[in-house]
């Protein structure tokens, strides 16, 4: 069953043009300049320091690097990060 679902989802996105972040449970990341990073649909915080933020997702982690990080807002599936962003990296888990 799960395999069919996993195969069906990219098909839905491709041919019915459904929003990919919702259908495939992927994080949606909005970056505003170097200042703000807004991440939705993540699966929880893994590491947070002054220079690094690591978030769990369905397939591994998202790593954001920079300096003077502040979490402006934390909600169950959303995070707003403020600081000077230099790196956004996907780490397969």
């Amino acid at each position, binding site marked *: 069953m799960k395999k069919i679902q996993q195969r069906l989802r990219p098909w839905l996105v491709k041919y019915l043009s459904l929003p990919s972040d919702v259908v495939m449970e992927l994080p949606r990341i909005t970056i505003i300049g170097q200042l703000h990073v807004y991440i939705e649909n993540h699966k929880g*915080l893994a590491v*947070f320091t002054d220079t690094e933020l690591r978030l769990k997702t369905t397939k591994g982690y998202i790593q954001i690097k920079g300096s003077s990080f*502040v*979490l402006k*807002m*934390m*909600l169950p599936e959303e995070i707003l990060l403020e600081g000077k962003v230099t790196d956004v990296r996907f780490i397969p888990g």
Partner: protein
Amino acid sequence: MKQIQGSYIKGYVTIIVKGRMPELFFQQCVNNGISVWNVRREGKSSCSGNIKLTDIPQVKQLRREGDYKISFDKRRGYPFLFSRFLRRKEFVLSFIMSVLLILFMSNVIWKIEITGELPKEIEEKIATQLNEYGIHPGAFLFTIDAPGKIQQKLIDDIPELLWVGVHQKGTTYQLEGVEKIVVKKDEVSGPRNLVATKKGVIKKMYVSKGVPKVMVNDFVKPGQLLVSGTLNENTNEQGDTNKQEDEKEKPNPILVAADGEIVASTWYEVDVTIPLKKNYELLTGNQEKRYYIGINNFKLPIWGFASPEYKAIHQDNKETSLNFFKWTLPIKIIESTLSEKQYHELERSREEAIKDGIKQAKEELQLQLGPDAKITSEKVLHESIENGKVKLYLYITVEENIAKAQPINQGD
């Protein structure tokens, strides 16, 4: 951002979490539905963040579950400000005092204004009279009577006043007076005749100026000339036939303001009905006072609780509302006076009823005609009894002054 809006009003706290991986504590908070903002890494094993005041019990619950050390750092927001304000007793006290003071000031008369074109003496008289009633700057608004009552009292006590209007406008009392004499001066003083106002038979004549045109015992109709103001009328009358020619030759008529008193006997026919049974209420003079604080329709008694043992009670309420600045508060002070009253029932015989009826008719007529008229005789023309009432048809003769001034039209 909606979750953290208005947090200043509800209050928020900065907490510092210490332990291994302190950021995970915030993740735990978020998973439990506590919104967290401004999370900052303070060092290797500590992290700070803001939470709402209302979420603190939940955070304490979470602290018990994990092995993090949590300390509260800054308290911000309105609830903290308020408690800090409450902690200063003198501050709270002065606030209450100032509100009370404003309340007190709003219910005191500050100024009495007397307007209207009145001479100084009358203005002063009004002021002293008001002082006697207890109305002066500094008097409480709820100790004084209603403006209508003051109006009545002032007119009764100061005979020079024709009318006085009393308004209460917030904390000032405005009085507007009209003097009696001013109106009297308005009467025309020019050449005039005296004419009759009513039909009647002339009884007495006293003419101080002018030529009398009627005699004693003459019957006059309304509008008839009684005293002429034209002295050399005869010459004028002759010229009337061919006025236009003669006007230049004849001397101008001498015109004066005719003055005098023509007393004639006039008559009136009056209908009166008098019930044979008479009910009336009489206050015995026993009374008790009660005070209430009224809010809308609710009355809270503050003084006088026992109900008096009167059989019948006449209740008089006087309401004074409290003011706060220019607004009237919904709170009223009600002073109610309970007076004992007695019902009296009186049955009259027919003769008594007729006598009362005549008396009543005479009084009414006298009131209508003024104090100068003299009622000389009355006669019952017809009487009947219907439904316990006596119906009278009266014929009353009166001696009164029927002269009325009428200005002479000089034709220019």
